């Protein structure tokens, strides 16, 4: 049931008249930051003043520079992307913290998938040691304390480089090389959710799900070459090859082509192992089809280049193959699909609705403008000034 709501006409007392600009300012601030404040809040009064002078960007900047924008809006978007259940009701984690930090510090959003860093709070303010990867910390205690002690992530996050992994709690003892770092993809939250057990295909599935906004069935394509499909995929289920050709191959041809990028990664218990050798999970059920692809290193190939997917993802990489997570992250982050997906997520969050299919051109336009700086605060401002988000007069 659609609930259509008319804004109630206010009863105005002459001595406390509320202007349209004041109401608009309050609505803008609340929708951008996620925080409802009094209509007499100084921030709203200041925004009202800018709106009266037709300085819309200046007004919006008050919202996008407020700590609530980062602690609530950005935090909400990131948390929902950080776990397998895609729920926002999780404790703060390194995925969300890094997202907030990148937004706050005006870093290029592509570093979310290419950077060799993460964000944590100032060590003096929490008990647990800073390493989110150390056994015993379970990766979450440090960040949980940010929330349990009511610290503002905006105020307390600091950047740490490079990313720490390994079986030690000593800061800096075991770190990722740049070629192995893919921002939040190689941080604790993402690895613990998607590189635990399994065959690392979920890492690829959820990379596309969270950063390209496509479910596996959306980008399946049975026309792609299957020379990279693993040995654990049955080509003759029930003695019939047609099911493989029409169904299994449509996902595996592309997914298996990518998964080699994480061949050296596996999340076990409370830590990840990165070794210059292919993890055992890549040889799981290798006898099902022995002529299938055998992962020998961390190379990968991009087969998501069929006509529909080429337009959907808008690849820009010079090469459609590479080695390691960083090259994989680079390929994703520099695609048009990445900026379009972030645009969709921010649009949905700020405008309180998903863009309709007829608004695809608007999404692509927003994404193109976003790519001029790749700053997440700029993305919020581009969206907030778009008439599709806030129609004139609202």
């Amino acid at each position, binding site marked *: *049931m*659609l*609930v*259509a*709501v*008319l*804004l*109630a006409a*206010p*009863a*105005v*007392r002459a001595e*406390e008249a*509320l202007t349209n600009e004041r*109401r608009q300012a*309050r609505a803008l601030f*609340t*929708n951008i930051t*996620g*925080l*409802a*404040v*009094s*209509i*007499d*809040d100084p921030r709203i009064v200041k925004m009202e003043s800018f709106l009266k002078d037709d300085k819309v960007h200046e007004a919006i900047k008050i919202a996008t520079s407020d700590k*609530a924008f980062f*602690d*609530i809006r950005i*935090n*909400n978007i990131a*948390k*929902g992307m950080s776990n397998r259940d895609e*729920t*926002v*009701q999780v404790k703060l984690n390194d995925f969300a913290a890094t997202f907030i930090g990148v937004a706050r510090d005006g870093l290029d959003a592509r570093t979310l998938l290419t950077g060799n860093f993460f964000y944590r709070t100032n060590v003096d303010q929490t008990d647990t040691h800073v390493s989110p990867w150390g056994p015993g910390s379970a990766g979450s205690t440090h960040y949980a304390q940010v929330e349990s002690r*009511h610290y503002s992530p905006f105020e307390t996050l600091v950047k740490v480089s490079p990313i720490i992994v390994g079986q030690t709690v000593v800061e800096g003892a075991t770190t990722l090389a740049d070629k192995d770092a893919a921002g939040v993809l190689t941080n604790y939250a993402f690895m613990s959710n998607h590189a635990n057990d399994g065959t690392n295909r979920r890492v690829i599935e959820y990379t596309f799900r969270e950063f390209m906004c496509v479910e596996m069935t959306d980008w399946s394509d049975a026309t792609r070459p299957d020379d990279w499909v693993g040995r654990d995929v049955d080509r003759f289920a029930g003695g019939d090859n047609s099911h493989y050709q029409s169904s299994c191959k449509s996902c595996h041809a592309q997914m298996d082509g990518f998964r080699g990028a994480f061949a050296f990664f596996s999340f076990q218990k409370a830590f990840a192992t990165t070794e210059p050798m292919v993890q055992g999970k890549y040889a799981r059920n290798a006898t099902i089809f022995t002529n299938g692809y055998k992962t020998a290193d961390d190379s990968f190939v991009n087969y998501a280049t069929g006509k529909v997917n080429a337009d959907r993802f808008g690849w820009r990489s010079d090469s459609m193959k590479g080695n390691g997570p960083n090259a994989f992250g680079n390929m994703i982050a520099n695609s048009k699909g990445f900026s379009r997906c972030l645009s969709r997520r921010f649009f949905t969050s700020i*405008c*309180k*609705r*998903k863009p*309709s299919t*007829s*608004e695809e051109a608007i999404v692509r336009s927003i994404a193109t403008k976003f790519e001029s700086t790749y700053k997440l605060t700029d993305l919020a401002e581009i969206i907030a000034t778009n008439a*599709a988000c806030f*129609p004139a007069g*609202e």
Partner: protein
Amino acid sequence: MGPIKLKRTYLKSLLLTASLALVNHACTGQLEAPSTATEMPSSAPYIDTGDSIVPVVATTTSKIASSEEILPSMAALVGLKLPSEGTYSAFNNAYRPLLSEDGAADSVNPPMMMSVLNLSGYVCNDLISQEKALASADRQFFIDWDFKKGTATLSPNVISASVHKLARSAWSRNETPDENKLISDAALSITGTKVNDTIGAAIMICTSVLASLDANKR
């Protein structure tokens, strides 16, 4: 005093919140649309009723405060510096799981509304504790309330003024005379000689405002 002990006050707040939903709130003048989606299309000027196209007034997408927005928002709307640990604990353990993750309009259900009401009670309790510690002139909402005495010290004007300040802050508009009277009369009906009775009246008007649709719609 914990709000969970004030059962009679809560029942009154619940009835009052429901009443407020029908008076000058979103439910009046509501237009039906055939879509099953919670989002409005960017332009939806007409309803197809079969034989004729009926032009309707353009409406805006509305949602409600999500689970991650509601507590900081409630606190900000009443100028609460920091909710108490009891409030955080109740929110995280009891209410957060029942609140909407995305604030979609069709996610509203009875357990959620009860959670909103109960949460507002905790926030209001914290607000009253914060204001009690201040001199009357330094308070934001409960000016001239004597929290050391029974309700006999409360005048209709004092209550009405508090309702106005809370409503304007939480609803982003001034309340109508009917709304003010509805809430004030409910608070005035709480009479007693004990300090808890005065606190009960304060919680009554605070939760009636803070738990209402206008405070939580987006």
